[in-house]
């Protein structure tokens, strides 16, 4: 406490500073945050809207307000500082300091509004609509956050605190200008393990495994609804707007009562609902009308706007049916969104849709499409280069590729067996040394001499599976334990350079190869990661997201037999590209959607 008081005293002495762009951690919460009070002068305020007691190390409760953004709002910091000056407070122990918080709260604190984007179908464009709304509101100076109560996703990411959430919510958080996405934004993540069993991840941590039937009969009505409520409330207390995303169609009348991802979540959050319809396949008016009509009256009232999305032709043509649609549904059309050609990672649909190729670039890279492929957005940054991807499902798909990537998988042993049965493994052995081959996570484990699953944790059968033998490494699945962590690393080969990524895996690997990266940590001595045999063009790492920064992308592509121009990666980082794409998306959104009306129906005013 004394330490905090000392810091606050320094802050009081320094006065109002606004955003501290000099700070190496800036922005540690959100773009545009106020840094006047890096340490809160009201700690521990005890206000349940802003924080809560958590059990401390010695059993004593500790006031935890690490998710509170109130003091970082510009108007709040400025008001608090001017009050401190007005009252002549010079020390943090001054009792009058405490009195400023209630005044600041009554002036500036409001429970946030919730809006939910639902889609008439899968792939309606919910995720990017949420991202666009987040960015548009962020630009207007609001504190805004994304939220998806329940997400079943093949692509997840690790938060600052080591929680696992769906990748798409981290992208939407970036759109909202938030720098530290957290598990509140996706409190329930479903990770299928088998045909009808899923690991349910709650608040970023494994909760329990459920069969589908049990999930809907036990989890949903029990803890499910409570979890959604708890996190929605949490979000609304911290943000001006919570932009929620539904799942699938909200009008699946055969499961309506069991669905906590759509209208039920909207009800819990008291959210305004916006319906997005993908126009691309046709029938969009019918999908829109049918969706509105099949939702029961009590919930239908929440639907306040429709967006016709992804129009490839002239968007104005769709407006010809707008009046009739509004008349039939009783819901206003907020606008018609053209197809926006931006590079943003998509949720899982693409992999499931049976896509066999992606991109137009001249360097063709084969990505083995495991039946249980995971975190395949790892390859997205490659499209910044002159790259196209072929999803490999048969050995013949490897014909003519200039490089191969073995991506992550939810089950290394089962997917390795699949790869052997398909004949892809033998084909890869023939290609060894001829084209660069990179394994990421599960794919990396497969490149070793063995996968030791003697306890049957991974594949179910107790056995040691012989791997591709590209590396001398052995991976051992010795206990049911998952490594979940963000990493900062340095490329040890080529021209070096910074690499970021995250680990999400079962099993540990005993590495006997030359390392690829050095991982640096604030808390531990640095250690080596990955494996490389340059002369055989073999590379392996546990780091998902290793292509996000330019260094490793350029290094890997340097082994590809292609003209130099094709391999000259742009100087941009993937992060910057995403940032530009989010801006382009929001620009298109704001010029085609009636923003005043949107903000109006969300309960705000412009």
């Amino acid at each position, binding site marked *: 406490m004394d330490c905090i008081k000392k810091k606050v005293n320094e802050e009081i002495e320094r006065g109002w500073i606004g955003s501290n762009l000099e700070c190496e951690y800036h922005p540690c919460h959100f773009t545009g945050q106020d840094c006047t009070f890096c340490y809160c002068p009201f700690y521990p305020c005890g206000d349940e809207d802003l924080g809560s007691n958590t059990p401390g190390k010695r059993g004593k409760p500790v006031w935890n307000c690490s998710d509170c953004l109130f003091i970082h709002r510009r108007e709040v910091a400025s008001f608090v500082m001017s009050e401190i000056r007005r009252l002549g407070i010079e020390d943090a122990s001054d009792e009058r300091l405490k009195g400023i918080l209630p005044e600041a709260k009554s002036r500036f604190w409001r429970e946030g509004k919730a809006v939910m984007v639902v889609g008439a179908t899968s792939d309606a464009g919910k995720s990017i609509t949420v991202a666009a709304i987040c960015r548009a509101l962020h630009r207007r100076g609001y504190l805004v956050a994304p939220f998806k109560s329940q997400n079943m996703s093949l692509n997840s990411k690790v938060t600052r605190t080591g929680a696992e959430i769906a990748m798409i919510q981290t992208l939407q958080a970036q759109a909202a200008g938030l720098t530290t996405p957290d598990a509140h934004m996706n409190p329930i993540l479903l990770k299928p393990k088998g045909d009808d069993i899923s690991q349910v991840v709650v608040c970023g941590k494994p909760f329990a495994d459920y069969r589908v039937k049990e999930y809907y009969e036990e989890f949903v009505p029990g803890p499910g609804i409570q979890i959604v409520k708890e996190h929605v409330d949490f979000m609304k207390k911290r943000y001006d707007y919570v932009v929620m995303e539904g799942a699938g169609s909200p009008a699946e009348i055969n499961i309506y009562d069991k669905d906590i991802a759509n209208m039920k979540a909207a009800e819990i959050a008291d959210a305004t609902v916006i319906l997005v319809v993908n126009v691309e396949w046709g029938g969009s008016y019918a999908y829109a009308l049918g969706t509105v009509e099949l939702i029961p009256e009590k919930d239908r009232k929440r639907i306040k706007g429709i967006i016709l999305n992804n129009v490839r032709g002239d968007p104005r043509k769709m407006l010809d049916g707008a009046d009739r649609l509004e008349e039939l549904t009783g819901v206003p059309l907020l606008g018609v969104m053209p197809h926006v050609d931006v590079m943003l990672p998509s949720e899982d649909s693409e992999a499931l849709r049976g896509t066999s190729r992606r991109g137009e670039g001249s360097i063709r890279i084969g990505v083995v499409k495991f039946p249980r492929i995971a975190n395949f957005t790892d390859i997205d940054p490659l499209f910044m280069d002159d790259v196209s991807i072929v999803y490999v499902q048969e050995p013949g798909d490897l014909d003519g590729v200039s490089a191969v990537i073995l991506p992550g998988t939810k*089950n290394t042993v089962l997917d390795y067996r699949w790869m052997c049965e398909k004949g892809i493994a033998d084909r890869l052995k023939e290609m060894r040394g001829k084209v660069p081959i990179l394994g990421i996570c599960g794919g990396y484990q497969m490149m070793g001499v063995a996968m030791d699953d003697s306890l049957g944790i991974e594949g179910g059968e107790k056995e040691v599976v012989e791997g591709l033998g590209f590396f001398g490494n052995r991976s051992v699945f010795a206990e049911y334990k998952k490594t979940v962590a963000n990493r900062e690393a340095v490329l040890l080969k080529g021209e070096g350079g910074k690499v970021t990524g995250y680990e999400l895996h079962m099993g540990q690997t005993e590495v006997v190869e030359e390392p690829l990266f050095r991982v640096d940590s604030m808390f531990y001595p640095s250690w080596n990661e990955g494996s490389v045999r340059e002369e055989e063009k073999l590379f392996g790492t546990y780091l998902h997201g290793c292509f996000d920064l330019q260094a490793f992308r350029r290094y890997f592509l340097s082994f590809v037999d292609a003209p130099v121009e094709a391999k000259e990666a742009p100087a941009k980082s993937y992060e910057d590209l995403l940032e530009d794409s989010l801006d382009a998306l929001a620009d298109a959104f704001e010029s085609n959607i009636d923003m005043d009306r949107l903000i109006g129906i969300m309960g705000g005013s412009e």
Partner: protein
Amino acid sequence: MRVLVLGTSSSAGKTTVCAMLCRYFARKGLDPVPFKASNLSLNSYATKDGGEIGMGQAFQAWSAGLEPETDMNPVLLKPSGNGVLQAVVDGKPFRDYRRGEAMDREELLGQALKAYGRLSAKHGMVVCEGSGSPAEINIMDRDIANTGLMGAADVPAILVGDIERGGVFAAIYGTWRIIPDHLRPRLKGFVINRFRGDAALLDDAISRIESMTGMKCLGVLPYVYLRFPEEDSCSKSQGKLEGENVREAFLRNIDELTDIAVSSGFDFDAVERIARERSSSRRDPHGADLRILRDDGVHRHRLPSDQEDVGVRQDPAGGCSLGYGLSRGYLEHGLFDGHGCHA
């Protein structure tokens, strides 16, 4: 006999369902013939007399045991790039339309109706295929193959909905609702296509849609990975047939699908009854009207025939249907894909 197969969207499965109906009724000796009044497609087939028709109609003709001919697709619209659309009429290039240029809708529809008339006279049953969705409010007055044909030739219709992308009940209901009042009674049934899992799980939802619309569910077709010709310009590329004898390969596939449909209880008899119906009457005993009274989520509507309220309950207690392990449309609901596990 005649029946029109409409889709709630592109790629809903119209072409395949038509081919399957042709196959089944050909086996039964009813002499079906395929027909698509107007087709927007880049994939065309050259008939023996040198005419050009949509590929889909050629496949359907083979399914019916017939040689493809131009009457089966009297109007073919081929996007030829730069916003130009080439209209092929009766197998021969007719004219080009530039972007924004109005089409000679009456003339094209007239040609289509003549071809339809010739086929009706020669064959026992005309299996017509719609184009895109029939419920595009903004272009409905220009429609040829959907409401255009329904209105002009008095053809009863069935709707095909794709459950894989989700929202199929909304799509079927919404399409029914948007079809103009005077044509709505001509919508007789619906088909749920590309379903994975136990169809019994959809029973409650299906009966609700049946009583809300008066349409009968003709069947739930399972998701079957068969290779069928690519029809619409925006459908995905996986439908391409390869190999030397495309016709034989296709017929093997359509035979397999027809057998699957028969064994899954697809109601071909009902389709035949629909196709036999003489003409539309003003008071259609099966067509529910639009007065839907709502009361706490319970949809009620009045059937003109008996003036009785039919209450349709949401998921009756105990019988709540969970769409387990089904199709991708449900994946986002956490109802798992039958493919196995994913990350």
